[in-house]
Every structure is written in C-alpha cells, then in structure tokens.
C-alpha cells in the first residue's frame, strides 16, 4: 500500500485496517503520510489532555501542535518498549508541563480561566457528553492541584508515574492529590 492510500484509508473510516505499530514504523522511516494518519488517530486524546491541563482552548491547540512536532522529531527514539499511545501521551504531559514552567508562575496565575462561560461552552462543544460542573471545578483548581488530579483521576496515571513525571517524591504526589480532591469536593459542594 502506498503512502497516500494509507492516509486516505484512515480518513475514510477504515481506521482499524492499519495498525498503529505499522504507521509508527513508516513514520520512523520518514513517511509523513503515516505520521498524519497517527495524528488523525490520536489527536483527540492529546488535545483533550492539553485542554484540561492548560484550560485554554487556543493554548491547547498550540500545545497539541507542539506535541506532534516533538513526537516527529523524536520518532527515532521510540523503541517499542511501551505502546506508542503511552509514549505519545507521556510526551504530551512533558510538553505541557515544560510549557507551563516556561510561561512562569505569574502568567499561569493570570491565565486562570478568564471567561469560565467561554471555557465551558468550548468544552461542551469539543467534549460532547462531559460533565460541565466537574470540568469547571477542575479548571478552577490551582495549576499544581489540577495537574495531578487530571493525571491521576482522569488519565489514570499511577502515583509513582506522576512522581517521576513531576520529579517529586511519592509522598508529595499523594499529598497533592489528597488536597486536590478535597478542593474539588468542596467546589462541587459534596
């Protein structure tokens, strides 16, 4: 199968006809059509992560682009030790956290959901079926609390994985998650 039919096949709905592993191998060989197919398959997962962690739809789109560009640059380093989706997701988490550190604390504080109504409208539109009250409460959490909560309770990362990603002790992560859940519970009036 040539590169163009491959991408078209994915665009026309036969998404399961080519495995992600096959696409990854072809992308590692420089095939941008295969990489586009990977993008089309996984962009929803990556964008959702970026959206929840950044709370800003436009920023989330920029971060999503950054994730895929970084993934392309690093395709050669993917050895298949884990699933590609796991590798890409982890890469996305690192890109978002790194971007947050670069922007600095001051901007992060200013970047709190400036317009909760607009954020909610976008989330409802882009995540059909979501619980808006929970999304808004999560979005209102401080950066650190929101990050660990999203990683643990939505994305399903283990405590030790979060500790490794954040570069902090396991006990610190547990304390952060305890605190984040308490804040969320209070915000929701539970």
């Amino acid at each position, binding site marked *: 199968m040539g*590169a163009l039919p491959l991408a078209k096949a994915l665009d026309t709905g036969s998404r399961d006809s080519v495995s992600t592993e096959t696409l990854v191998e*072809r*992308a*590692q*060989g*420089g*095939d*941008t*059509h*295969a*990489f*586009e197919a990977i*993008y*089309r398959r996984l*962009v*929803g*997962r990556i*964008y*959702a*992560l970026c959206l929840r962690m950044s709370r800003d*739809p*436009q920023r*989330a*789109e*920029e971060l*999503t*682009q950054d994730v*895929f*560009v970084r993934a*392309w*640059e*690093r*395709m*050669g*380093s993917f050895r298949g030790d884990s699933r590609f989706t796991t590798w890409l997701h982890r890469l996305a988490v690192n890109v978002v956290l790194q971007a947050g550190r670069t922007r600095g604390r001051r*901007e992060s504080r200013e970047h709190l959901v400036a317009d909760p109504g607009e954020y909610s409208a*976008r989330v409802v*539109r*882009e*995540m*059909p*079926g*979501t*619980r808006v009250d*929970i*999304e808004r409460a999560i979005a209102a959490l401080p950066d650190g609390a929101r990050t660990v*909560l999203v990683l643990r*309770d*939505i*994305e*399903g990362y283990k405590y030790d994985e979060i500790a490794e990603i954040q570069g902090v002790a396991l006990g610190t992560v*547990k304390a952060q*998650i*305890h605190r984040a*859940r*308490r804040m*969320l*519970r209070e915000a*929701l009036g*539970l």
Partner: protein
Amino acid sequence: MKRHASFEELQDFQEGLLPPEENEAVRGHLERCPSCRRDLEAFSNLLREMGDLPREAEPSRDLWPQIEWRIGREAGAVRGAEGPAPSDVKRRRQITLPAWQLLAASITLALVSGGVVWVALSGGIRDSGPVASVPMDVSLAQPAGWETALDEYHDAVSDLEEVLEVGRDVLDPETVRILEENLQAIDSAINEAQAALAQDPGSKVLRRFLAENLRRKIDLLHRAAAAVYANT
C-alpha cells in the same frame, strides 16, 4: 477507630493504599458510621464520574496543516517512506561565530528576508532600502516565490533567535519576559493565519494578515538582537 475517618483516610481506603492495620480500622468504623459511609460513597461517585469524563476532544480546527508545515521544514518536506528518518533529518546548527558577527549577518538577512516576505505575501509593496532590491516578480501568484520567501524568513528568524539565545543573559529578565510574551502572541496570530490560509489558500486578506505578523516577528527579533548587540 472511635473518631470519624478523615477524607484522606477515605481516599486511601478507597484506593487500597492503607497499611493492613489501618485499613481494618477504617473498615470497622465504616460499618458503624453512616456519616462516613455517605462520605465514602460520595467520593467513590466523584472518582467514577471523573473516570467517565471524555478523554477525547475535537479541536476547533484541523491542526495538521501547521504540524505538516513545521515538520516539513524539519524534514526538508520529506514525503514518502523513502525519506530519511525524522531523527536523521533534524537540523540543528551550531553557533560558531561570535555574537556580534552573527548579529551583523542576521540583521542583513532579516532585513532582506523580511522584505521578501512582505513583498511576496502582500503582492508587492514598494519601499526603499533592502525591500526595493527584492525582485518584484515574487508575488502572490507564484508559489515558488512564496516558498522561497518563507524559507528565507525562517532562516532569518532562526538566526535572530540564535543571537538572542547567545545574548539572553545580557538582557534584563523582565525585558526577556515581555519579549517572550510578545513573540508568543505573534506566533499565535501566525498559527491562526496559516490555519485559515490552509482552508482558504487564495485569500489575499489572510496573506496580508500573515505577512504583517511575519514582519512583526522579524521586527521584534531584530530590535531584541540590536539590544543584545548594544549590551555585548
């Protein structure tokens, strides 16, 4: 356990993180305490609801055109499996010139490239100086001129960014912060314009908007590089 279970204990109980002895103590308390059972149930529901939240979302626009454009620059617009692996084609230039030499070269390049971009994207605005030296057959109607202009633009940006990287420490941190904020805003506008152009390639309005923002970025980098030079 005679007291109520704390919320932290309930969380750890729910996730099986308590040591066996504490786990049994909380379990025993829960059997006797309706209030703590309600708290545990509410927490369990909250966890389940968070776990059920959608883990996919659809961006408001197709992000691929910009990603393709960015990786195309990295890979030399490689298409097809015959091309080199992404890791092999990644271009990373090493800075071997002193900052002032790099600055001198990059300012010249920036002026020319900025002009090329402006002329190429806006359909030919006549001006004096370096811009006037740009061949006027580089126009909107010629894709080759467009590509050339963009390549030169990116080279200029890359050179100026390298100057900034070299001279970053000589600038006031607040200046650097403001500079980065402005660059970020301009990049956002550029990304938006490129995305819109991908949908409507023939729009002169969009090209002018893109051109204006490309020029703004060059101008800003140029001024920053000059500040580096002045402090070096």
